[in-house]
């Protein structure tokens, strides 16, 4: 083994990140023991809104749960086979199938029986979201109250007052619905604080990702998966927002001291969407070449909120508080939240593949990449739509591209040996050899 080029050290806040995640899933399961309420919905659901019901309201976001199942290969297989026995097609969203299978088996991947939500609070933009929980209701064989906000109003660059109102009015309706099914008086002040935390979390996470422009990169994508996930769980909580502030400070410190994620960094790549959760080892394999994946459009844009800075580069979007905006009313809070979320990078390319290409080209340039890895992900039709066009656009922009096939949540569709072979070939084409 050659001596490292840069110094490395573990993240100090790593243990705290683990604890936040563990507590999140435990709190959800034990919510009723504390007299609390449980709700389920997608990671993009506006979790700030149910937060107005009280401090004892606990969510579970479905995609991260599906990813957690995927990481447990044996349990994931049980879930997938249960879904297939129930007659659902294998080409459906693999996060969704993992979640459904868990419900069908009545097994919580974190132990015990699967905790049934008291209500479902969902958004709809991807092709699976709304149907996801309609099926959950069928599987649970219970009339679980279900509210879904349609956010598919088109790219943010085309947003107008009417489109914004379309979302905001649904939010208002949603709050009335929440009060009715929860039998609680809604607390607008809690909503406002939750919106502030939401904006803080997502802006800070973008700032963390932006720090990976530095050479050496202070973080690698595999590590980032364990960090960004908190924002997919409960971005509107003060715990998460405060954690991201702590993380931002630590990563800044790493940059100042030249601490690297990969000690022998000499090649930088990015990926695009969900990784094959059962095989994150491929990111460690890259390190054998001195290659670091600095992130992906997914890790950057799933929860990170970005904006073009004064110098024309991509950076964190300024929060309302940073802009001196004080939120005083429910409507203002909801309008702020809607406008904030509709700009989410990961939402844009559900509409047009070229928007994904544009964002990835920007990242590739600003983060100084040598190449790009595209996951031809059979588990997600929504984010994989147009991936072949993305490849062409990236190549035209001058970036070498490799593709690999797999499934984010179904390890049966990932071929580790072949993927490693493709990585070998890709590194070779980039001119990098193994360092061992």
């Amino acid at each position, binding site marked *: 083994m050659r001596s490292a080029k840069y110094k490395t050290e573990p993240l100090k806040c790593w243990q705290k990140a683990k604890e936040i995640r563990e507590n999140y899933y435990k709190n959800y399961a034990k919510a009723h023991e504390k007299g609390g309420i449980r709700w389920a919905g997608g990671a993009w659901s506006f979790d700030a809104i149910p937060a107005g019901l009280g401090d004892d309201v606990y969510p579970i976001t479905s995609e991260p749960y599906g990813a957690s199942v995927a990481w447990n290969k044996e349990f994931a297989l049980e879930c997938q086979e249960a879904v297939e026995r129930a007659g659902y097609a294998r080409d459906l969203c693999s996060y969704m199938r993992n979640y459904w299978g868990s419900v069908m088996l009545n097994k919580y991947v974190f132990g015990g029986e699967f905790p049934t939500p008291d209500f479902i609070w969902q958004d709809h933009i991807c092709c699976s979201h709304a149907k996801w929980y309609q099926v959950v209701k069928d599987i649970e064989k219970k009339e679980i109250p279900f509210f879904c906000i349609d956010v598919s109003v088109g790219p943010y660059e085309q947003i107008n007052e009417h489109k914004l109102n379309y979302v905001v009015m649904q939010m208002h309706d949603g709050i009335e619905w929440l009060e009715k099914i929860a039998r609680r008086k809604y607390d607008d002040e809690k909503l406002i604080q939750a919106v502030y935390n939401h904006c803080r979390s997502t802006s800070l996470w973008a700032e963390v990702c932006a720090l990976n422009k530095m050479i050496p990169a202070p973080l690698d994508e595999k590590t980032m998966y364990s960090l960004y996930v908190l924002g997919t769980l409960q971005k509107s909580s003060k715990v998460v927002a405060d954690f991201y502030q702590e993380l931002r400070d630590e990563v800044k410190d790493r940059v100042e001291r030249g601490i690297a994620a990969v000690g022998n960094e000499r090649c930088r790549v990015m990926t695009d969407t969900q990784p094959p959760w059962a095989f994150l080892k491929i990111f460690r394999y890259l390190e054998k070449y001195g290659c670091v994946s600095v992130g992906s459009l997914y890790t950057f844009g799933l929860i990170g909120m970005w904006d073009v800075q004064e110098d024309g580069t991509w950076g964190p979007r300024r929060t309302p508080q940073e802009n001196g905006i004080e939120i005083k009313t429910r409507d203002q809070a909801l309008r702020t939240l809607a406008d904030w979320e509709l700009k989410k990078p990961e939402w844009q390319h559900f509409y047009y593949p070229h928007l994904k290409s544009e964002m990835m080209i920007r990242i590739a340039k600003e983060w100084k990449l040598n190449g790009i890895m595209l996951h031809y992900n059979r588990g997600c039709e929504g984010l994989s739509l147009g991936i072949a066009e993305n490849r062409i656009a990236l190549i035209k922009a001058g970036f070498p591209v*490799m593709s690999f096939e797999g499934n984010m949540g179904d390890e049966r569709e990932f071929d580790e040996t072949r993927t490693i072979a493709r990585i*070998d*070939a890709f590194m070779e084409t980039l001119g990098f*050899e193994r360092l061992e």
Partner: protein
Amino acid sequence: MVTVGIDCGAKETKALLIEGNKILAKYSVLSGFDQKYAAEEAFENILKKTGISREDITHITSTGVGRKGAYFVNSSITEVGANAKGILFYYPSVRTVIDVGAEEGRAIKLDERGKVLDFAINEKCAAGAGIFTETMARALEIKLEEMGELSLKSQKPIPMNAQCAVFAESEVVSLIHSKTPKEDIARSILDAIADRIASMVRRIGIEKDVALTGGVAKNIGFVHSLKRDLQVELFIPENPEFICALGAALIAAERALSPSKEGGE
């Protein structure tokens, strides 16, 4: 300087020995289940054929899916890199290589020095590779070597819908039961493979000149189908299944002269 390239393929392991720019020997054995043994056997045979001792070999480079099994080599390179290097030995003007082996199909774009500019590999299925033809030959109850000639006698194209070897075999059986002539079925099979390969090639773009390598390049029916599909002339070297081994041997020579660039795994 004497160097050796060993291509540890999924079905066959090929070894090729060069001295300078001259090919002195080549040998192929079935890979079987013991990749190490196959690599050794291929290597020992080219030594016997040439009378050159192991000690006189300056550098050995392996390639292929089983390259890690060739424990005695000095370095290794991927099939993509080996193909690019090897084809220029025969055709310096080639800028696109299509390699169709037993289990994989590859399309490679390269520059005049053999540097790989882009590549694509077939999907997680042997439907676009040689194993597919073997499976289908069994279904047709003909020898694999006969399939190409037989397909050229066909006057009627029949689209094959299934692209998976498992389902395609079922489709072939159905065609047989419907009394479809064997030559038409053979053509259907090779057209299907060619269509799949052509689709993959188009992913990286076709830049002339275009060469075809790998064992399936010896199937004249497939070559005919692919030419028709791509509408380009295909350069096919002598012994196309040895191009990767040749590329590895050439790279071995380069690495012997520049040890710092060795890519050992």
